[in-house]
């Protein structure tokens, strides 16, 4: 199952970054596919990006909401919120585990041999604050004299923008090198910090700072595809605690906001068939791979 997940991650990364004409065009892809939402965190200023980043698009819509309304255009983020909302309702943070290129990149970094450290549990709340403050409140309220705001998260924090777009564009377009300043160095330091942190800790950006992960986490109790714990079969052996890349103690909190449904607990840890996966309450398979045939209630 882990091999399948890796292949899905690779395929998702290629689908979201499949425009490989940039070495010749020296520019980003500008085709019609960019009307589609990237499920994971993937900067749309990346030269190879084929889809739009929901966080970038949402911040831009909120930053220009006054001007748009004044022009009679009620672009409040309906389309973007609808897109990520649908993804969140069906998959939740499974997207982080299966379809986010930056999540996959962090997993690869974590394979570099080194001493490994845990991430303090309290830090996970930071990403919710980043979502609220840097993605919603500041772009919406901190505006200039023309009523135009800024995409604060992209501008001051997002390491994906630096690694996928900033650095490649500086290489492709040498004229841009004269314009780099504080913003670039600030983001470069943040990017470097998360890269180094990902070597010694598992998925630090996902767990601490990713606002898209925070948005998807809001659906952890209601998402359609989710893991289910059968308490009668759980022996509290805590094997599921050991394998979780997100530090979730699955048998203690099966609806945890950090669960990325990577299935490691189900396939690599639980020997008692206590963990299964279901869609909208319909069981798909148990830990031992027994495909359950659903019956109607009382059937």
């Amino acid at each position, binding site marked *: 199952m882990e091999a399948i997940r890796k292949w899905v991650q690779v395929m998702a990364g290629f689908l979201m970054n499949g425009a490989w004409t940039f070495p010749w065009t020296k520019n980003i892809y500008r085709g019609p596919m960019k009307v589609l939402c990237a499920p994971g965190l993937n900067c749309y200023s990346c030269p190879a990006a084929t889809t739009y980043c929901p966080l970038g698009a949402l911040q831009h819509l909120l930053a220009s909401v006054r001007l748009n309304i004044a022009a009679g255009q009620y672009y409040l983020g309906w389309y973007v919120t*609808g897109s990520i909302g649908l993804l969140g309702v069906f998959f939740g943070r499974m997207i982080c585990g299966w379809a986010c290129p930056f999540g996959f990149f962090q997993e690869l970094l974590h394979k570099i041999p080194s001493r490994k450290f845990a991430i303090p549990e309290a830090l996970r709340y930071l990403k919710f604050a980043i979502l609220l403050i840097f993605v919603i409140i500041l772009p919406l309220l901190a505006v200039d004299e023309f009523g135009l705001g800024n995409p604060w998260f992209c501008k001051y924090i997002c390491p994906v923008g630096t690694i996928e777009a900033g650095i490649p564009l500086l290489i492709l377009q040498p004229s841009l090198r004269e*314009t780099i300043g504080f913003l670039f160095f600030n983001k470069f330091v943040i990017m470097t910090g998360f890269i180094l942190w990902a070597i010694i800790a598992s998925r630090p950006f996902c767990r601490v700072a990713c606002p898209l992960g925070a948005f998807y986490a809001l659906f952890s109790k209601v998402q359609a595809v989710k893991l289910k714990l059968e308490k009668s079969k759980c022996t509290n052996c805590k094997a599921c605690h050991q394998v979780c890349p997100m530090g979730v103690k699955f048998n203690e909190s099966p609806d945890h906001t950090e669960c990325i449904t990577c299935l490691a607990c189900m396939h690599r840890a639980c020997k008692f068939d206590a963990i299964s996966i279901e869609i909208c*309450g319909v069981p798909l398979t148990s830990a031992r791979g027994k495909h359950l045939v659903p019956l109607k*209630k009382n059937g």
Partner: protein
Amino acid sequence: MNKNIPEQRTAFTIRKAPIVLGLFFLGLLLIGIAIDEPSHVLEQAKQICLNCIGIG
């Protein structure tokens, strides 16, 4: 049929919350499409936002 084969079928309750929420977000998506928000998003996505990537 061998009656000693363990029963693997199980009863379940369909969770309605994801379906209801899914319809809600589908509604938002359709509102966005109705007011032509996707074309605005597409225009944004075609531009390089230099500030956003730390340049400029």
